[in-house]
């Protein structure tokens, strides 16, 4: 295969982007490689989680879905933690990461990526201000509690909350009502912006006319639907984990003789079943659209269909039909529908849903590069596992894991300042 041959010629000091993890079969053009690898899989996946988490919180704030009250506040804070992570994969992927800012300096608006900076910043401003309105009362309360307390930590917290309150200390009924109104408006604007942020991640792929698999006007809609699915799933999953952890640490503390600790209920099944209904709704929409796309391609059978069929039904069959549709969609769908749902069953179903959405991103990004532009050959992606240089770290397993772990680290920090979960 081509790869070994090159290294044998003593070119190992040159990093030809893509050469290392691409193997070719039959006829491909000389410059074709898997240029968009794991980080570009992570990019729509992470943006999707951000958008989904925000939409979940907005369902409560805008449409007043009372059943989502508990999880709404949490998912709002989580979407803030996920926000910087949507940028990370792009930075990891750029060949010139230091020039990433150029997109803001000279945005070239015929490009689908050019508006990213603007849409993303708009969205960040909305999320931040919404959180501020939700937590303003809390900030002021903290300032009152911490006032006059001694000790370095308390002083620091006092000044931090002083700063966060932005000097708005008014806690009258009128002011609080105004806060709520602002939250509602922001959440209302936020939904289309979140959908736009992610739908247009779909547009980035859907508008590449050179790529037979990507080019489809359905792509943005499919991306939004699966984004909401993954966002809801991640919020539910993290909610279950945190609540169960709190429950068990309380039980252990009580067991150690600390009688002052109240045993709390853990994750509430009621919250979970109600949220999972929304999850199922979006899941059905996502699958229907994806199947429509597939059927349409098969039926119209354009020039590219021969090679697409050989990729979808042949080389990527396991990835698409077994891992994505069966294990990632059908199995959790049935698990959530069978009566007598438990927290444990939901927990595993959610993991499968998240995996399913990840596989969908994988099959779009990597699957779209699995065949040559010549329609006469194939390319295979071998993800670098053990990194031996910066490139194989960034665009390999560990780069992806870094991106995956960051939102949880951020949530841990943010949660210290704005507690996302309360228990009675």
């Amino acid at each position, binding site marked *: 295969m*081509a790869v070994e041959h*090159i290294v044998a*010629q*003593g*070119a190992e000091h*040159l*990093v*030809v*982007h*893509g*050469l290392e993890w691409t193997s070719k079969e*039959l*006829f*491909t*053009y*000389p*410059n*074709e*490689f898997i*240029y*968009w690898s794991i980080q570009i899989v992570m990019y729509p996946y992470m943006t999707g989680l951000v958008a989904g988490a925000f939409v979940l919180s907005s369902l409560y704030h805008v449409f007043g879905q009372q059943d989502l009250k508990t999880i709404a506040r949490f998912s709002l804070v989580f979407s803030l933690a996920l926000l910087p992570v949507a940028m990370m994969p*792009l930075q990891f*992927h*750029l*060949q*010139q990461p230091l*020039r*990433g800012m*150029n*997109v803001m*300096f*000279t*945005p*070239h608006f*015929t*490009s*689908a*990526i*050019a508006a*990213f900076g603007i849409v993303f910043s708009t969205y960040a401003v909305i999320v931040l201000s919404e959180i501020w309105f939700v937590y303003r009362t809390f900030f002021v309360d903290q300032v009152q509690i911490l006032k006059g307390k001694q000790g370095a930590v308390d002083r620091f917290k006092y000044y931090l909350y002083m700063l966060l309150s932005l000097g708005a200390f008014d806690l009258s009924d009128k002011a609080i009502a105004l806060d709520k109104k602002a939250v509602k408006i922001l959440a209302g604007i936020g939904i289309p912006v979140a959908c736009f942020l992610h739908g247009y991640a779909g547009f*980035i792929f859907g*508008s*590449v*006319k*050179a*790529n037979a698999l990507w080019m489809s006007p359905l792509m943005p809609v499919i991306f939004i639907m699966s984004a909401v699915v993954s966002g809801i799933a991640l919020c539910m999953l993290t909610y279950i984990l945190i609540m169960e952890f709190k429950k068990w640490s309380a039980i252990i503390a009580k067991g150690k003789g600390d009688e002052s600790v109240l045993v709390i209920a853990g994750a509430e099944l009621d919250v979970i079943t109600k949220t999972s209904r929304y999850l199922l709704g979006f899941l059905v929409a996502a699958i229907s659209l994806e199947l429509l796309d597939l059927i349409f391609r098969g039926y119209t059978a354009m*020039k590219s269909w021969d090679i697409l069929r050989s990729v979808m039904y042949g080389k990527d069959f396991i990835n698409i039909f077994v891992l994505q549709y069966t294990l990632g969609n059908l199995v959790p769908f049935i698990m959530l529908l069978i009566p007598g749902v438990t927290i444990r069953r939901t927990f595993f179903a959610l993991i499968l849903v998240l995996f399913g959405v990840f596989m969908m991103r994988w099959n779009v990004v990597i699957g779209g590069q699995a065949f*040559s*532009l*010549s*329609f*006469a050959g194939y390319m295979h992606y071998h993800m670098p596992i053990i990194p031996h240089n910066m490139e194989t770290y960034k665009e390999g397993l560990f780069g992806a894991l870094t991106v995956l772990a960051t939102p949880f680290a951020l949530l841990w920090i943010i949660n210290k300042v704005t507690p996302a979960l309360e228990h009675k």
Partner: protein
Amino acid sequence: MNCSRRDFIKNTFKTTLASALPLSAFKMLSPAEVKAYTGDSSIRWVFLVDTQKCVGCGLCVKACKHENEIPYAPPITRTWVERYVLMKNGQAHIESPYGGRDGYTDTKIRENEIPPEQIAKGFFVPKLCNQCKKPACVQVCPVGATYQTLDGVVLVDRKWCIGCGYCIMACPYGMRFFHPIHRVAEKCTFCYHRIKQGMKTACVQNCPFGARRIGNLKDPNDPVTKVIMTERVSVLKDEYGTKPQVYYIGLDTNVR
């Protein structure tokens, strides 16, 4: 208003200095220089490939790699030559190892011996950037680092490209790649540095059989333009609507 002559001169001096300093950060270009950067609108560079003259020697690929400083060992290349061997049973063998850099001297294709008596036809197809009229790569560049000159050539600004790879994905011809040293998008420029000086491109210069020619479509007396206007020529993959400007003589339906 009270303003003495001394104050007036003082303030004038200050204002001039204050406005001159920030302005000095900009580079002033003369109209001639601007024109040199953006190209000449009385020219439209086009390319003409006569596949019937190509013998697959690979000298064009070699010359291009040397001229444009593309690392020699890796398979990435600005131009390449494809070999098509079509069998009597309808099977097509296509290859372009290292872009055909070393010439096609072997009868094997991907380690397989091709029995000569079963061959229906065989030919070579040189490929290079089509310098499309509506280039998809320019459309998708998020920072405007790739652009089209007035004389029709698509170039990349190596100092501004962020290396996202969107242009590589957008090109239906697979022309673009990342330069391993500059680490930005790289492509065939019709040897812009040479044609601006009245020279031929490296590949045209080095083709011993005249299979590759470059010309100005806006000049009706240009021999290349005459061929394009009066003979039957075709382009590659016109279904993408990019309006490619590399014209071919003798293309086959099997050409990808």
